[in-house]
Structures are given as C-alpha cells and as structure tokens.
C-alpha cells in the first residue's frame, strides 16, 4: 500500500550515499520513490551489502510489527455505558453549549451540483496590496444598504417591517466589480462599504446598492481582472481571445470609476497612442492581432528556436479597429466609457490564478503558455510602461507563485524527479534566480515573514497546463525557511487548485480551494494569524463558503462572488468586513450574468 506520494528531499541533503540509500529504503516502504531515485537506490543496494541488509531489515521489522495485528484486544463491555454516562454528565454540567448562541454561519451547498451552471462572474474588488481599488476620495459615497436608505427590493420591504439590525460601521473603503449584461455589455460597479450587517442578523440589513455602475467597453470579454496598486489601470485576462490586456480605469479628467461618464479615458503610461483614440468599443468579434516575431529587446532570454510561429506574441498588439459596439448601439444613454486597452500578450493561455502586481506597482507577473499548448507554462512579467510583457522563464515548467518584496516567487518541478519541487526568487529585471524553498507556490505575505504554500507532491494537471497539488497539505510556514517555525496546516489534500491572498497587514489571508469537478467554483475561507502564529477563524468569517474563482482582500474586507444557483438566483457579490469589534457581511442583489474582477 502506498501511504505517501513521492518524496521531495533532494539527494544532496544526505551526508553520504549510504545514508541516502537507507533513508530511501525506509521511505520506499511507505510510498513510491521517483523513478530516478528508485533506480539509483536499486543500483546502490546491488553494490552495497550493508545497505541491502538494512533495507531487508526494514521490511522484516515491518512484517514482525504487523504480525501484532493478529491480536486485537477487546474493550470492556461496559465501556459505552461509562462513556455515555460521562457525556450526559458533561452535558448537564455545562447546560446549553455556549457555542450554540453564536456559531459560524456556514452555507454549505453541494458545489458539484452547481458546476453545471456556466454563469461567469466578475468581481472587481479591493486589491490585496492597496485594498481600495479605485481610490476613496473621488468615489461617490453611495449608500450601501437599503437599511440606510429607502428599501428597494421586496425582501427589503418585507424586512423593513421588522426591527432592522444595527449595521456595523467599518473603515471607509470601496469594492468594485463588473457585471456582464445579457447583450455582452459590461458595467463597472463601485460601492463604498462603510457599514456591514451583524453576522447574526437574520434578515433586513439590506443589499449593496450598485446604482453607481457605469458602462464600460473593453476589447475582450474578461475572465479575470487585477487592478494595479495605484488604481489607475487593471490587467484583464481574456476568457475568449487569448490575450492579456491592460486597460485604463481612470476616466478622462480624472474621473474615477464610480461616476457616470461619457468621456474617453485618459491614456495610461502603458497605453500606446493608437489605443487612446477610439471612442467606441472595439468589436469583440474582431480577429485577434496577428502574431509577430518577438521583440528582441524584451525577449532576449528566449532562445531563437523557441520564437516560432506557435509562440505567443509579445509584440504590442494593435487595438482592433474600432467598430460599432453592440453595447453602444444597444445602449441609448449614456454612451459607454471606452477603456483604452493594450494587449500585452497574445495567443496565450493564462495558467492558474496567482497573477499579481508587485507591491510597488511597477511590475505585473502571470503564468501562461502558448494558446496552442505547444509548450508548458512560463512566467511572464510586464513592467508598467512597457508595450508588452516578456517571458521571464524559458523552461516551459515554471509557475508564478507570488511576490516577495520586488522579487518574483516561482515554483517548478525539480529536474531531479525525486526531489519534488523547487521554489526560487527571480529578479524580474535581470532574471537572476536564487533558491528559496522546497514548497509549491508559496503565497508570501506582505511582510515577507510568512507564506502559505503547498507542502507535498505535485502532479501534471489533467489538461496538461502545468501542475496541480498531489499528496500533501496547504500550510502556513515561515518564509522562506519553511521548516524553522511551527507549521500550521490550512488544508489537507487532495486539492485540485488553490488561491491564497493576504491583506496588506499580513495578519489576514483568505484561501480558495477549487472544486474537483469545476475549476471555476470552490470554497473560500478567511483566516487570521493570532497570537504565537496560531491560525484563527473568527466567528462569522467565511469558512469553506461556496465562491467562484477570484476574490479580493484588503482594507478589512473580503469580497467574492457566490456561485449561481443558490436558491435559484444568479450570482451575488458577497462582502465580509471586520473590525476589532467583530465581523459583518453584506451582499449584492443577485445578478443574471455578473462579471469578474479581483
């Protein structure tokens, strides 16, 4: 029986070949070794009688120990009577459980049953770095709760008949998201969150008001949107045309996203001049820009033979020629704001969900592979102001994990199969690498002291696009020396995929674990680092709450999109906010086809 997956320890961790052989011989009893290590072990044992004898002893000792299974002791017959009486006494001594009065509200639904619903949800929220995505000062201080304004929904009206719970005041901050309307048009919602409902409120605390939404148009239907720390632009991963685009989030004249605007956007530093001109939405049906040879100045690290026609292009892609936008023609007024956008990568398939801006906002990193699947994933970096992203790694086997200060944290399988995983830090400018850890995809906190990482084996993803966790667990560890501090297990495998994000303080993080049947749906949990590094889940914090992929955390808020289908409704934007006094929540009204951002 294989109790464990493949091992990770590198051969150079042993002081001698004999020590290595004995350790491997013991390890092989509980799980398979990698092919290379197993071959090495067999060859060593064939030539080392002493090690072979020890390996045989391990197996013989094991059999001797397992022989004890034949003698199964029988517990005393009155053991249950004694135990039941003790439990009853325990119950009487403590009366009603104190936990009954205030439990976590866990909304468990069979995620798998939801997976058949293909609604795409886009949430634009506060960034992990800056929290407030589009700024606070210029944002409209829209009313968030029906409870503090006129009731707008039937539920609000019904709830209004009863005494409304007192909302919890939280620090100022905005949450934004996109909504995809049935005609394909997009609306950017911006809501200031300064009050949330008490977690034990049963009803009537109102819903998020999205009346401040403004129409926008970008050249591709977004799958994921990540805002820059300076809130001026966002990187949009297309779900349809294999592009990664940068769009301006600042309307002309400095208007922020929360206000109705018909003006053209201000070009960002990353936006080439040709992209600033259109005043109408590019036609989404337009063919993607043709691939061209990579720019030598940005793809210098790519071997020439790899720059084939199958390669994703890093050439700045011209914004498709403006054409009449369905959104424009279908929308009588106001005219949509056109977000100037620039394709920084084309003909790629973005892999995983850990794309992010660096803390200083100067770089953006993501993992992608050619859209034709001709090679494995590599890390791409885009320096704000450049026309295109460039491929930072070239081995076709590296995945972006997170940022540690201004360094890219990257994970890849070890060239030595038995050694498992290598995580390195890479200078995004020079490409210089340094070994960092032996865990997979560590999400390093903003202080650079901790990381949540996969400790275990990895295996090829079923779609061939990279790797997925194998046998092991998701752990909170010290960074980068993961073994030097108490390890806290966040989740045990098997896990299909995960997304971990920290708030700006490094005290809170959220973990999203993908459902094994639908990678777009999963469960979201919020954690706090307590005293002595203990993991805590405050009452009211999401705990394996169903959520679509993509969430934002920061400024004391966690925002995500609920999967459609719960109660027969569409997706909602759900927000949990916390203060020293507690945790509260608020939701948007269900949307037919709400869109995505993070």
């Amino acid at each position, binding site marked *: 029986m294989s109790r464990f997956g493949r091992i*990770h320890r590198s051969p150079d961790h042993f002081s001698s070949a004999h020590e290595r052989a004995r350790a491997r011989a013991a390890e092989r009893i509980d799980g398979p070794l990698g092919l290379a290590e197993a071959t090495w072990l067999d060859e060593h044992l064939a030539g080392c009688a002493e090690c072979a004898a020890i390996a045989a002893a391990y197996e013989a000792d094991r059999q001797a120990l397992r022989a004890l299974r034949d003698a199964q*002791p029988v*517990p005393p017959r009155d053991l249950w009577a004694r135990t*039941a009486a003790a439990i*009853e006494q325990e119950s009487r001594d403590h009366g009603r459980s104190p936990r009954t009065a205030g439990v976590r509200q866990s909304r468990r639904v069979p995620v798998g049953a939801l997976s058949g619903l293909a609604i795409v949800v886009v949430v634009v929220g506060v960034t992990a770095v800056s929290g407030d995505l589009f700024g606070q000062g210029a944002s409209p201080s829209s009313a968030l709760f029906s409870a503090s304004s006129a009731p707008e929904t039937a539920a609000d009206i019904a709830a209004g008949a009863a005494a409304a719970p007192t909302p919890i005041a939280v620090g100022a901050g905005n949450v934004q998201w996109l909504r995809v309307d049935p005609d394909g048009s997009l609306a950017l919602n911006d809501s200031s969150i300064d009050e949330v409902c008490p977690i034990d409120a049963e009803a009537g605390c109102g819903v998020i008001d999205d009346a401040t939404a403004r129409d926008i148009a970008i050249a591709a239907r977004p799958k994921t949107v990540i805002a820059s720390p300076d809130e001026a632009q966002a990187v949009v991963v297309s779900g349809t045309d294999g592009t990664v685009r940068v769009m301006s989030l600042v309307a002309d004249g400095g208007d922020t996203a929360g206000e109705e605007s018909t003006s053209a956007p201000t070009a960002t530093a990353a936006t080439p001049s040709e992209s600033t001109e259109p005043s109408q939405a590019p036609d989404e049906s337009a063919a993607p820009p043709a691939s061209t040879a990579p720019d030598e100045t940005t793809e210098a690290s790519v071997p020439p033979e790899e720059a084939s026609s199958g390669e994703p292009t890093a050439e700045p892609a011209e914004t498709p020629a403006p054409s009449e936008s369905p959104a424009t023609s279908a929308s009588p007024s106001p005219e949509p704001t056109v977000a100037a956008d620039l394709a920084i990568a084309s003909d790629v398939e973005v892999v995983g969900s850990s794309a992010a801006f660096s803390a200083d906002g100067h770089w953006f990193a993501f993992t992608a592979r050619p859209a034709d699947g001709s090679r494995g994933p590599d890390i791409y970096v885009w320096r704000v102001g450049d026309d295109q992203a460039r491929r930072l790694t070239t081995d076709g086997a590296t995945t972006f994990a997170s940022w540690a200060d201004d360094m890219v944290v990257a994970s890849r399988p070890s060239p030595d199969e038995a050694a498992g995983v290598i995580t390195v830090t890479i200078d995004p400018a020079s490409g210089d690498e340094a070994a960092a850890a032996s865990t997979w995809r560590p999400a390093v906190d903003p202080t650079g002291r901790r990381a949540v990482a996969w400790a275990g084996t990895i295996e090829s993803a079923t779609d061939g696009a990279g790797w997925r966790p194998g*046998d092991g*667990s998701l752990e909170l560890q010290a960074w980068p020396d993961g073994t030097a501090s108490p390890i806290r297990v966040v989740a045990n495998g098997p896990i299909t995929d995960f997304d971990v994000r920290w708030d700006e303080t490094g005290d809170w993080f959220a973990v999203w674990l993908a459902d094994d049947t639908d990678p777009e749906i999963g469960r979201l949990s919020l954690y706090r680092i307590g005293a002595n590094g203990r993991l805590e889940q405050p009452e009211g914090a999401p705990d394996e709450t169903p959520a679509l992929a993509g969430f934002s955390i920061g400024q004391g808020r966690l925002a995500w999109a609920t999967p459609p289908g719960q109660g027969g409704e569409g997706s909602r934007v759900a927000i949990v906010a916390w203060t020293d006094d507690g945790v509260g929540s608020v939701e948007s009204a269900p949307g037919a086809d709400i869109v995505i951002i993070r």
Partner: protein
Amino acid sequence: MSGTWDRDEAAAFVETLFAKHQGEIYAYLLRMMRDPEVAADMTQDAFIKAYKNYETLEKPENARAWLYQIAHRVALDEIRRRKIIRFLPWTGESKGAAPSAEHLVMDARLSGDMQRALERIPERQRAALLLAELHDLTGLELAAALGVSHVAARALLTRARESLRQALAAERAAEAQAEASRDQNHAARTDR
C-alpha cells in the same frame, strides 16, 4: 464541523463514532499504554473529548483521523503526566479484574524483543509506527492524527523505522550476550 453545535446532535454523532471505532481506539491506546484499565479510561476520555470538541470536526469523512488525533493527544498527555516515556511494564495485575485471554495473548506477542524495542524509541515515533502498521492510517490520516504536516509525518515514520531497526538490533545483541553469559555460567558449573 462548522455549523450549529447541538448537544443532541453531538451526542448522537459520538455514539455512532463509538460503535464504529471504539475497538481500534482502545487497541491503539492499549498498545501505547500497555495497561488495559488505563486504556479503557483513556478511551472513555477520548470520546468525551470528541463530544466536547465536536464543532472542531470539519468534515465527517475525516472523523476517523480526527478521533485518532484526540486519542493520540490523550495518550501523550497521560504519558507526560505520569512522567513515563516508555511503556508501562506489563505486570498482569491491572487494577480490578484479571487480564483477559486476549490481553495475555497480546502481551505474549509484545513481550519479546519487539516490545522492548518499541519501548526504546520515542513515543511519537512509536505512535507513528503503530498507527501506520497496525491501524492502517493513510498518510493524510497519519498526519492529522499526529498533528503534523504530511511531509513531517512521512519523515517521522522514516525515522521511526530506523529507530526500530536499531532498537531491535540492540535487543537482539543484548539477548545474545545474555544467552552467551548463561552458557558460560552453565559451562563453569559443569566444569566444577
């Protein structure tokens, strides 16, 4: 298990757990403590703790590993409380009733060099071996029961196998030496 912590629900759940797992939990604690009476008391204690900590069980499918984790902690606490590191010596004179036939059979099996070797190794390594080889816990269950990461559990088990090998070798060497000494004394008496 997140959700409303209901006493009746918890009691019913623990009763189901008891019916399903009492035998193996008792066996594990007996193998750790080597005293039937103590093992019975600790089994009872483990299920009471399961009742009291019902809300910490995240998923029902993890109940077995969760129960072993509780039992393991109960055992370690008791070992530390008694300031014993090794197995209690089997005297055949437990408090109360005389040992059952099963206990005697088990003791006979454990009373040889394997028992003494197990006594020699650290209790966490001993627990890892017992849980893995006699209780068939998977790697993840073992990690959960021991309260360590999956990687640490495997490393612990690897160290335990080496510790057991060395301890068994030491026991056998000591036994051989004692045998030789007995033969020497016998020869000396014969010579007289």
